[in-house]
């Protein structure tokens, strides 16, 4: 009767231990190898000013600023910085990305330089059409090498779908 209980207790302890080890291992890995820190901030665009915000009205424009900093001692190479266009009515504002040389994706897997195009068949003819920027779901910048102690900031503006204002 005691054996199953002991066995369960042992199993539970094992799970907790494993979790602790994993979490410690994760923290250790972060500290040791993952030198690049990513900081994301959101601002509301009011006229020509940027106001830090945690709120938005339909029709508002939000500027996202992402700072990539190499806090390590070795360079980070082939840095690809990805900024999603969040769900919930946000749309990328065309040509607002900085640096301007940016890639975009509809699914987060396949990226291509903007403007995105796609091939469609219309009236039996193959046509290449421009994908509306409102369909962009991800932006990605190729930052190349980030030297130790250096940081790079990328920005982009998104617009919250407007209510039909009077």
């Amino acid at each position, binding site marked *: 009767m005691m054996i199953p209980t002991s066995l369960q207790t042992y199993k539970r302890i094992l799970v907790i231990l494993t979790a602790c080890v*994993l979490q410690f*291992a*994760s923290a250790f*890995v*972060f500290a040791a*190898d*993952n*030198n*690049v*820190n*990513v*900081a*994301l*901030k*959101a601002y509301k665009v009011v006229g020509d000013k940027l106001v830090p*915000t*945690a*709120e*938005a*009205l*339909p*029709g508002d424009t*939000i500027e*996202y600023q*992402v700072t*990539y900093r190499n806090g*390590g001692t*070795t*360079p*980070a*190479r*082939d*840095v*690809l*910085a*990805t*900024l*999603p266009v*969040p*769900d*919930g*009515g*946000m749309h990328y504002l065309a040509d607002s990305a900085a640096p301007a040389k940016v890639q975009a994706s509809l699914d987060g897997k396949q990226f291509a330089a903007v403007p995105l195009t796609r091939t469609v068949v219309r009236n039996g003819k193959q046509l290449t059409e421009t994908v509306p920027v409102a369909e962009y779901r991800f932006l990605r910048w190729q*930052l190349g090498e*980030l030297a130790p102690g250096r940081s790079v900031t990328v920005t982009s503006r998104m617009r*919250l*779908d*407007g*209510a*039909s*204002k*009077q």
Partner: protein
Amino acid sequence: MKLKPVQRAVAIAIGLSAVTLQAGAATPAGTSITNQASATYLDSTLTARTATSNTVVTVVQQVASVTVSAGTSKTGSASGQVVFAHTITNNGNGADSFTLSTTNSGAFMMANVVFYADNDGNGVADNATAITTTGTLQPGAKMNVVAVATLPAGVGNGATNNLVVNATSTFNTANTASATDVTTVAPVSALDITANSAGAGAPGAGPGVEASAVATNTTAAGTPTRFTLVLNNSGTGTDTFNLSASTDPTFGNVSLPSGWTVTFKDAGGATITSASVASGASTVVYAEVNVPAGATPSTVDLYFRALSPTTNVGDRIHDAVIVTAPAGAELSVTKTQALDANCDGVADTAFSNAQITAGAVPGACIRYEITATNNGANAVSAVGITDTIPANTTYHVASASTVASATQGLVVAPGAGQTGVVSAAVGILLPNASAKMSFGVRINP
């Protein structure tokens, strides 16, 4: 690579917080929009690494937006009501209620405007409970309401009122939508008088007085005749019309020829002076015209009018009476004369019954015309015209073509230069037909 489960968890968390939206709809108020940037790179050992940022949350705030469906134009009558249906739509991104109000402009102000719910959207109030607000409407939700406006008493026909219906957001009272309803005052009744029958094809159909008679009765002097008038009310309400008759189509002067009378009677034969006509109905009125026995045979244009003293709505109809001579007095005879100074057998002037005051000197000639006319309703027969050569004159013949003659029948005359009787055997004269006998005389030298 050991971080992958953590990242997957983050990715799942982001996925769960994502809000599914219908295309075009504003993001609901309170929605949290989360964003998290990431980077991939190769570290110094060329191991692929991923770094993720903090999560940024943006909470969507409420905006008010409302629409009121377009206004319409209607006609109403003094003290009557008009009903305007509107749909109020919450186009904001949060639940909101909308205060209903109205403002007036134009030639008159509505005496009263009350809103009612019209949830079934049939344009009729659902119940007798007045409302002043839509109550809470979820984003995208609509409410049908009706504005029941009461016109003031005594407003003139054709006057218009612009009623602006406002819906104001409770969340943000600066947000208001409006639509304008137009009311034009029109009388409750609309009258058209037709002869004998109702409908678009009936004689006299259409408003206003006709240029020519649409019904003509023939009657002998002293015998009454009856016209059938149909009063058609195409308006929305019952009205009572005063009846009158005149020879003046404008009714500026309501008068009849001397001795004439007109009596109006209803379908039951009772004498009336006014007639009530229900909305969309027709009422028959008889106009009995009494022509006096001594009336001159002629055609008399008669106009009948029905006019409401309360709404001023009315119409007129143009009829006519052909008065004929009574039996036994059908024939009328007129005699006219003209000077023929040089006795060539041709009248120097127009014939008239006036006295010749110059030129009738001894040796001059005079031409006569005697006309017999049948003014009766029937043909008369054995008509003869007879005249005597006046004293101090002799029958005169200038040429073969100017001997005594008649338009109908054989003529008998004295010998040239003689006296006696000139006669024409006219024979049968149809109604309205006439025959004329002509001859000349010479004043004795």
